[in-house]
């Protein structure tokens, strides 16, 4: 790569396209923004470095996700990934949700994140997984 050849060249690990239009769009017009009063998952997580905060609500019906909403405050990456994630969650079963991996988030985003922004991009998934853990803990079906 270029940076290895030229000692006077340093570059961030992120692709140039990190602020693609669809990311800006999700940031400015977040999908499923709001709260669900009666939801099985109600969970908040904080990205301590940036101060990004997400609160996620997931409501299940007959074993499938009926509705998802989120509220939050943070950078475009954390907000856009959460917004995108809420779109793919609908109709998923709990088992399908538990199989979600960070690669799925990257694929959904379609861009490469550097080490620092990785934390922003994965805040949505962390919040979801912690929320699932908490729900299962409550229901006593912890595996």
């Amino acid at each position: 790569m270029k940076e290895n050849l030229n000692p006077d060249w340093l570059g961030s690990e992120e692709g140039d396209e990190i602020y693609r239009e669809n990311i800006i769009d999700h940031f400015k017009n977040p999908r499923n923004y709001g709260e669900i009063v009666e939801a099985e998952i109600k969970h908040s997580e904080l990205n301590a470095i940036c101060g990004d905060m997400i609160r996620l609500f997931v409501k299940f019906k007959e074993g499938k996700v009926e509705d998802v909403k989120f509220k939050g405050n943070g950078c475009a990456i954390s907000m856009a990934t959460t917004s995108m994630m809420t779109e793919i969650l609908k109709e998923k079963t709990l088992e399908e949700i538990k199989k979600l991996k960070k690669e799925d988030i990257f694929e959904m985003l379609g861009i490469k994140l550097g080490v620092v922004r990785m934390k922003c991009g994965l805040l949505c998934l962390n919040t979801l997984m912690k929320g699932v853990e908490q729900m299962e803990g409550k229901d006593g079906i912890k595996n």
Partner: protein
Amino acid sequence: MKNHMLDVGNIIKDFAILNKRINGKRLVYLDNAATSLTPEPVLEAMNEYYRSYNANVHRSIHTLGEKATKEYVEAHKKVADFINADLEETIFTKGATESLNALAYCLMKDLKEGDEVVLSEMEHHSNIVPWQQLAKNKNVKVKYICVNDDYELDLEHARELINKKTKIVSVMHVSNVLGTINDVKEIGGLAKNVGAVFIVDSAQGAPHFSVDVKEIDCDFLCFSGHKMLGPTGIGVLYGKKKMLEKLNPFLFGGEMIREVNFEESKWNDLPWKFEAGTPNIAGGIGLGAAVDYLRKIGMERIRNYEEHLTAYAFKKLKEAGVLVYCAKDARKRGGVMTFKIDGMHAHDVAALLDKEGVAIRAGHMCAMPLVNKILKENALCRASLYFYNTTGDIDTLIIGIKKAKEVFQIA
């Protein structure tokens, strides 16, 4: 441009890093409040120690040991002179954080329940957390001088807070978020009136203008080498001689003793009684070289140049419609511009500026109480200057901000 008597074109040649390209663009380094860049003479002084007279200090009789000791003591003298203190009053530490922690620890034993420590709402975490710990240990109250609407310390409030119960007053010289230059002499006077120990955190002051501890009349003052052209891992704790004489050391071991018996030991002379163990010798020598570099340019000239550059930056930011949190009076602020762009998160601003080669800070700047509770924000952007910056750097910043707004489709 007119450089207000500063030959920045030549100065820049001493900073190799300024020739780097970042993401293909010329580096514009505007994160000086976090850490400054290091010029060749400082690097050279440290390399010289390792290459030519690598030895421990204060203990080895051989030629190298003698030379290392002489240079290390000389570095203390340079720093002492830099702040108008004596050698005995100038202790090298790891940095401002360690200096403040050491003070909280050393002063703890004189405090009792019901005593009060007065800080300010704009303090850096390093001038809050050590005192909170002390307060917990000793059942002491911590109180904070308010920041007023003009982002200055409310001196009326300081007068109310500082009373007979106050045992320690510790405030910052210059805010690393607001850039406000605090009237430390005035606050010191209030502390003196009630017999409280007065401490100044000059981490953002000493690098930028001439600091005279006798004029401020503080009991203690601290700063970090890496914010004033020196290396990381070295900093300063100044203490008035009569204060340091009363104070017990906070580290024990080699170098700091005069005589050790199996039962007890006698402390070494000042300042060495506070520098236990093999110190950061190269770092100390580097800090000495940094002081030489700054003095060669002249602190007056640095301040004048930065004042001019800061005024330029404020004007340009205002023209670009950027909201800056700072005091109105230009004479009361340093080269720190903390700002916000509506509709964008600070990290996105910083990431997009990075693509233009512009390095700024985004976040809470280690002053969470100020940023979250007083400014009521989660994260802000901060551009901070030093004397090697130019109006060209500011122009690049402004262009970068405009481009970032375009990406986010902000008019």
